[in-house]
């Protein structure tokens, strides 16, 4: 799962290593894509899936700047929906001021990864977001 040992991704659809990227389960019948494990395809009821790579670059289609969140989440943060070449991805928009002056729909963004913590075995958790550029 990783090139650097001692790392684990925040979610299993984030693939770490030299070329970090997101993957989805793609229905082999209709090409619908899912980030979570599925029992069958919501679109066509097919039950054969294969891993498909999601584009690393995309366009921010929607966002909000969250000011009130659960206690362990630092605020404000930018949450958004990114259109990655036809696959919609939910993620935080990072490495930019979390203000309406610095974030806008239509802006080009690209995938980036960063550490989110270390567990007691010294394993580093790695998360992802999208930053301006691309």
């Amino acid at each position, binding site marked *: 799962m990783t090139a650097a040992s001692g790392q*684990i*991704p*925040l*979610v*299993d*659809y984030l693939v770490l290593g030299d070329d970090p990227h997101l993957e989805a389960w793609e229905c082999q019948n209709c090409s*619908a*894509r*899912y*980030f*979570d*494990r599925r029992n069958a395809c*919501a*679109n066509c009821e097919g039950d054969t899936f294969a891993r498909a790579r999601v584009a690393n670059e995309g366009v921010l*289609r*929607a*966002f*909000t*700047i*969250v*000011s*009130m*969140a*659960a*206690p*362990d*989440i*630092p605020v404000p*943060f930018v*949450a*958004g*929906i990114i259109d990655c070449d*036809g*696959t*919609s*991805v*939910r*993620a*935080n928009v990072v490495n930019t001021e979390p203000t*309406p002056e610095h974030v806008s*729909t*239509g802006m080009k963004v690209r995938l980036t990864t960063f550490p*989110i*913590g270390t*567990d*007691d*075995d010294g*394993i580093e*958790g790695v*998360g*992802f977001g999208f930053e301006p550029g691309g």
Partner: protein
Amino acid sequence: MAEDVWILGIHMTKFGKHPDKDTVDLAAEAARAALFDGGVTMKEMGILAVGNLMNAWAGIGQQLQKQIGQTGIPVYNVANACATGATALRTAVMAVKAGEVDFGLAVGVEKLAGAGLLSGGAPRQEGTHYEPSGRYGAITGTDGRIGTQTMPGAFAQIGMEYGHKYGGVTFELFAKISEKNHSHSTLNPLAAYNKKMSLEQIMGDVMIAYPITRPMCSANCDGAAAAVVVSDAKLKTLSLEQQRRAIKISASVLTTDPWEEACQVLPNVNTLTRNAAKQAYEKAGIGPEDLDLVELHDCFATAELVHYDNLMLCPEGGAVDFFESGATWRDGSMPVNVSGGLESKGHPIAATGIANIWEVCHHLRGEASHRQIEGAKVGLAHVIGLGQACGLHILEKASV
């Protein structure tokens, strides 16, 4: 073909804080008042459908029945997120339409005063050992780390997405929608909040999730609403007064969202609602231009904007211009949320789907006095719940 179903009696309690009343107290108040309004009693009811979310496991339907008339009829305990009230009504309507019962009673009730942020899932405790868990193989809570699924966050994004698609969307625009609803509520004694708020006050209030400030969110409060439904054949045997005040349910529709790309990352409330609206207009044999008033699901001010388009009250992509024209104020061509909407009237979740039907009925019966929408003959009531669910009813004044 199944015959028409009518609302015979309907009632909503005042929405707000009811610290001295429990859930069953509120439900009983609404239910007994709806029965009285319809000139009937529990003895006539053939089915009871009770919507409640906070105690969905606790058999509120049976508890209520024991307090208002334990007649042994079938009870359906209904939960469908924020579309619960409309789903409870739909349940009663279906039983009447199927010819199984002459009268049905539907109730929606919630005690929510003091409830905080309703989020998309509790954060997981930071463990001492990262271990992938669940269908996403997550090592810890993802809300706030991978976007947000909290309700204000989701609906903020839904509003911003409309702007990305069609343009013209600003923070101020959404605040103006909220301003309208707070203004409308000053005439509604049953609203949880009936204070006028200026645009500056609304925009300057606490920001929850840009562009949504606190007054632009639905108000958590306590409340209940109930409706008695009756078959057309049975209605014709009742008094002229009962027939005159009965409101025809010209359409009663429930939908979920069909699969679309992106529905897994942002709730699709658009296709969900548009499908329900199309079905309802067809069933009722009317178009949106025939509506005299609309009570739609403004869980957040951003939601109201997209629903103008989803309900086809305006041309596709034209919601911004439609609002800016003043059409949706109470003196406009398409009054929307004259009750004050969820933002100001309040949103005791399971009650809302029947309470907004009460509002429409109140105007169609010509009983809304100083806040009457003159000449109202046809109205639409709409609720949605995340997951998703959309309940939509078209109501028409009796021609008796």
